[in-house]
C-alpha cells in the first residue's frame, strides 16, 4: 500500500493546526480571570512594554490573604511598587497588566492600582475572559 500521499496530506493538516493553534500567553494559568464580553483580544492590542501583576487568592477558606505574583514569584505589595517605579523609570509608557481572581475583593486590585498611581504608571490593563456570562 502506498502511504506517501496520505503522509503528505497528514503533514499539511498537522502544519495547519500547529500554526492555527494560538499559544495564548498565560502568565499564570491558575487564575480565574473575570468575565467580560467586551474584553479585546490580547494579541491584537498594542500593550507595549508590560508589567504583569498576578493577584491570586491563596485558597485557604476563611483566611483573607492573597499573593501578588510577578514572573511567578510571590512578592509583597511594597515590592510591587518598587518594581513598578523601576519599570516606570526605564520606560515612561509601561503598561501594568493586572490579572486577578474574579472572586477577590476589589481592595486587592485597588491596592495594585494605587501602587501604579504612586509609581506614576498611567496605563493599567485588566485581563479578562472575553465570553458571555459575567453578570
Amino acid at each position: 500500500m502506498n502511504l506517501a500521499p496520505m503522509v503528505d496530506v497528514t503533514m499539511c493538516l498537522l502544519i495547519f493546526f500547529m500554526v492555527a493553534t494560538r499559544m495564548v500567553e498565560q502568565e499564570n494559568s491558575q487564575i480565574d480571570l473575570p468575565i467580560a464580553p467586551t474584553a479585546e483580544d490580547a494579541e491584537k492590542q498594542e500593550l507595549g512594554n508590560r508589567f504583569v501583576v498576578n493577584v491570586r487568592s491563596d485558597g485557604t477558606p476563611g483566611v483573607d490573604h492573597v499573593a501578588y505574583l510577578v514572573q511567578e514569584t510571590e512578592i509583597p505589595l511594597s515590592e510591587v511598587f518598587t518594581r513598578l517605579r523601576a519599570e516606570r523609570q526605564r520606560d515612561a509608557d509601561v503598561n501594568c497588566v493586572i490579572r486577578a481572581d474574579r472572586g477577590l475583593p476589589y481592595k486587592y486590585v485597588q491596592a495594585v492600582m494605587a501602587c501604579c498611581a504612586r509609581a506614576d504608571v498611567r496605563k493599567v490593563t485588566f485581563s479578562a475572559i472575553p465570553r458571555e456570562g459575567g453578570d
Partner: protein
Amino acid sequence: MLHRGFSPAHAYAPNLAPMVDVVMVILVFFMLGTSLAVTEGVLPTELPSQIGPQGEAEISIVPTVRIYLWVSADGAGCRIRVMDEAMPTNSFSALRAYLRDKRIAGADPTGRVLITAESEVTYQSVISAMDACVRAGFSNIQFSVSLDVTAGAE
C-alpha cells in the same frame, strides 16, 4: 534469474506505518488543542493624570457618569448607584440599559465615566460595571483610587 549483491532501490520501501501513527496522534493533539484554547482578553484603562507621586488629586473635569458599587449589609450582593441614585434592579444588564439610554439621550460617549467601588465588592462586579460601560458605548472609563488603600491589602 537470481540477483546477487545490492538489491535495486525500489525494493527498499520504508515502513511508514509507525510514522503515520505518531503524526496522527500529534494531529489529533493540535486539533483538540485548537478548540480548547482559552483566549485571554484585556480591558485597557488609564489612571487620571492628576494623581501621582506628588499626591495631588485635583480632578477638575466633572465626570459624565459616576458609578458607585457597594455591598449592602443584608448580604444581597453588589448594589449599584449611578449619579447618586440607586438602581431599581441591581444587575449589570440594567446598568447597561441605563447607560445606553443616557448615551442616546445625548451624553458624550468620550466623556469620563468614573467607577468607584467599595473594598469588599468583588473584582468581577467591578469588571462587569466596566464591561457595561463599554457595551453602552462609553470609551473613557476611569477608576477612583485612594492612594492609602495599600495598607489593608498586604
